[in-house]
């Protein structure tokens, strides 16, 4: 057993209590079909999916019900067979707590699949595979929900890839869905890695895993014994080792600079659950319709569930025995980066990796926020090597340009700074605020530019129309006047000619 792989250590990070064993004692559980399935059209990063069905339509399991709108978007599939009974705004698991468009399916109980077809990826080429992935609805299942086909697109553009990194670090406390997946679906996962390895045409695949997942490490080590090109590299349990750029540095010692992608350095990374989703899609033609979710924290029976997207969260909380100490507070994601759910009347989505029922220690009257004492402990903890204290002052005083200059957008919002802050300042909240302000400002600036362009074009058009009208009028005037003149002249000439003729006639008579 190779325990001491060479790992490069990133700056800072924290060693928090992992609390992972709360939810790993029991196997992954599936629950019976729920009465209603509610699928939000916004489950991914990018544009809202475009609706393809209407109320009353019968759909089959795995049928496309909303397609990707453009490239930065992801498709949505029916997670069971049934009838579309509503398309309306419902509460979704989003930090805003605002409702968004959802499709409601009333399952018919048959759970009948559409015709599933394996993808002959060797024959059709990477381009076609990518197109199909766009229809598969697969997004990064680590929690960020970034459309997977975009990642493949990037790798293709960058040319030669040499390494596939499988992100199995799962560094946030409480979350164990990847751990359980590796324990229970080891074989399938390795098949998936082999498949993605071949599709990407890389030389080696490295599984990066934190040293606290001993069972998963054992299973995987056993499973990859005969695989030459797949290796397992164990990294120390330091949060946030599961962040893509941190993990690449830990394993390869490569720091990806600002504005670059890992694919520029020949590396592509996928989360274990995403690998499995790609495998299920290509090998069996199954689109993305379910995932493993950790339901943990202050519950009678915390564990992992394999859930269809759209399953009401409330039913699962009930299945897990409900809260031990009632406080009706639930966090989606981990305790470091997650957010408080507005309510548990929300469906399971692609980005839902973990639900923590808040423990009394988490909801207890929060420690008072004190002024910043400039201790710079946050800078020591920052894995991105930023200056969180500076970013905090700039964000607090709304000096957004300054904050941007200090690389605010490199912040991964991991929460290490807030965790170590002796003054209990919610630093990440300030960064998020500053980031969304800047993003909105940019958006407004773009809109203003478009409005200016349109206004200038209109003024130009009006000017042009005025000129054209003037020209036309002048022409008409010129035309009409010349015609009249010739007419008048002609008339006069005719009169003269007539008179002359008359005189001539009279002269002739007189003669």
């Amino acid at each position, binding site marked *: 057993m190779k325990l001491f792989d060479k790992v490069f250590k990133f700056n800072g990070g924290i060693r928090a209590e992992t609390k992972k064993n709360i939810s790993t004692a029991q196997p992954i559980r599936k629950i019976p079909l729920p009465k209603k399935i509610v699928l939000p059209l*916004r489950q991914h990063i990018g544009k*809202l999916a475009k609706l393809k069905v209407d109320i009353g339509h019968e759909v089959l399991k795995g049928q496309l019900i909303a397609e990707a709108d453009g490239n930065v978007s992801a498709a949505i599939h029916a997670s069971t067979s049934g009838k579309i009974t509503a398309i309306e705004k419902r509460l*979704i698991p*989003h*930090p*805003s707590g*605002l*409702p*968004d468009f959802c499709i409601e399916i009333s399952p018919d109980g048959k759970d009948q699949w559409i015709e599933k077809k394996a993808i002959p990826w060797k024959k059709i080429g990477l381009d076609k595979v990518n197109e199909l992935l766009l229809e598969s609805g697969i997004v990064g299942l680590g929690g960020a929900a970034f459309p997977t086909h975009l990642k493949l697109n990037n790798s293709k553009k960058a040319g030669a890839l040499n390494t596939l990194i499988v992100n199995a670090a799962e560094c946030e406390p409480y979350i164990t869905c990847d751990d359980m997946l590796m324990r229970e679906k080891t074989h399938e996962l390795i098949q998936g890695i082999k498949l993605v390895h071949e599709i990407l045409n890389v030389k080696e695949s490295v599984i990066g895993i934190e040293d606290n997942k001993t069972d998963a490490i054992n299973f995987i080590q056993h499973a990859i014994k005969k695989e030459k090109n797949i290796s397992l590299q164990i990294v120390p349990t330091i949060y946030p080792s599961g962040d893509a750029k941190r993990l690449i540095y830990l394993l390869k010692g490569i720091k990806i600079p600002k504005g670059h992608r890992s694919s520029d350095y020949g590396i592509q990374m996928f989360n274990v659950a995403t690998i499995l989703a790609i495998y299920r899609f290509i090998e069996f033609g199954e689109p993305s319709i379910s995932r493993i979710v950790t339901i943990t924290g202050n519950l009678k029976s915390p564990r992992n569930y394999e859930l269809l997207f759209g399953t009401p969260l409330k039913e699962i909380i009930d299945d897990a025995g409900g809260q031990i100490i009632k406080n009706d507070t639930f966090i989606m994601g981990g305790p470091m980066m997650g957010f408080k759910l507005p309510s548990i009347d929300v469906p399971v989505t692609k980005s839902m990796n973990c639900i923590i029922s808040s423990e009394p220690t988490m909801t207890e009257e929060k420690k*008072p*926020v004190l002024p910043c004492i400039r201790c710079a402990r946050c800078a020591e903890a920052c894995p991105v090597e930023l200056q969180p204290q500076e970013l905090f002052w700039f964000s607090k005083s709304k000096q957004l340009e300054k904050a941007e200059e200090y690389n605010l957008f490199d912040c991964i919002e991991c929460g290490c700074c807030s965790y170590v802050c002796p003054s209990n300042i*919610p630093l990440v*909240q*300030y960064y*998020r*605020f500053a*980031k*969304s*302000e800047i993003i*909105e400002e940019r958006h*407004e600036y773009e*809109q*203003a*530019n*478009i*409005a*200016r362009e*349109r*206004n*200038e*074009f*209109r*003024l130009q*058009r009006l000017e042009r129309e005025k000129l054209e009208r003037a020209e036309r009028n002048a022409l008409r005037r010129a035309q009409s006047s010349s015609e009249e003149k010739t007419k008048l002249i002609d008339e006069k000439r005719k009169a003269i000619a007539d008179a002359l003729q008359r005189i001539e006639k009279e002269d002739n008579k007189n003669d």
Partner: protein
Amino acid sequence: MITSILVVVFLAVIIGIVLGISAIKFKVEGDPIIEKIDSILPQTQCGQCGFPGCKPYATAIANGEADINQCPPGGDEGIHKLADLLGVEYKPLNAEHGEPKPKSVAIIDEKTCIGCTLCIQACPVDAILGSAKHMHTIIEKECTGCELCLPPCPVDCIDMVAIEENAENWKWKYPVYKIDKVSERRAS
């Protein structure tokens, strides 16, 4: 004595030539300050400032004919930016020109519209689509919310609808937390 005079004259000629050439070669077309002011203005083209659009207002500011506090859609933030750019004191928005309103878009009640094209002629950004005696509609994405289409409408079928916060345009809020008095904290 002669040498020093020659050196100075020589330098003067050289510098003169360099400056002369640069003045021609790097000549700045138009007045850049107008462009800079214009880029701060929100481009609503509403005319509330008393000028027929953002560019004319920017020109007026640059020429000292208008004050910096006449743009309600730009709001306080816009005035601050203009003050920073021009190096003048900030002054609060002049209420004569209107109050800042939440960003909204115009919506045409398509049942009532008689197709008179008057609003199309009024729209400063060509965001209204339609033709004579046919129903008109507003391209929401392009609407700046200037309200210029409201007065010409003979049947009052245009409404301004404020843009609601939704999951897409939602922003993280400025963190707010309670600061206890030290005495209270000690007591608890």
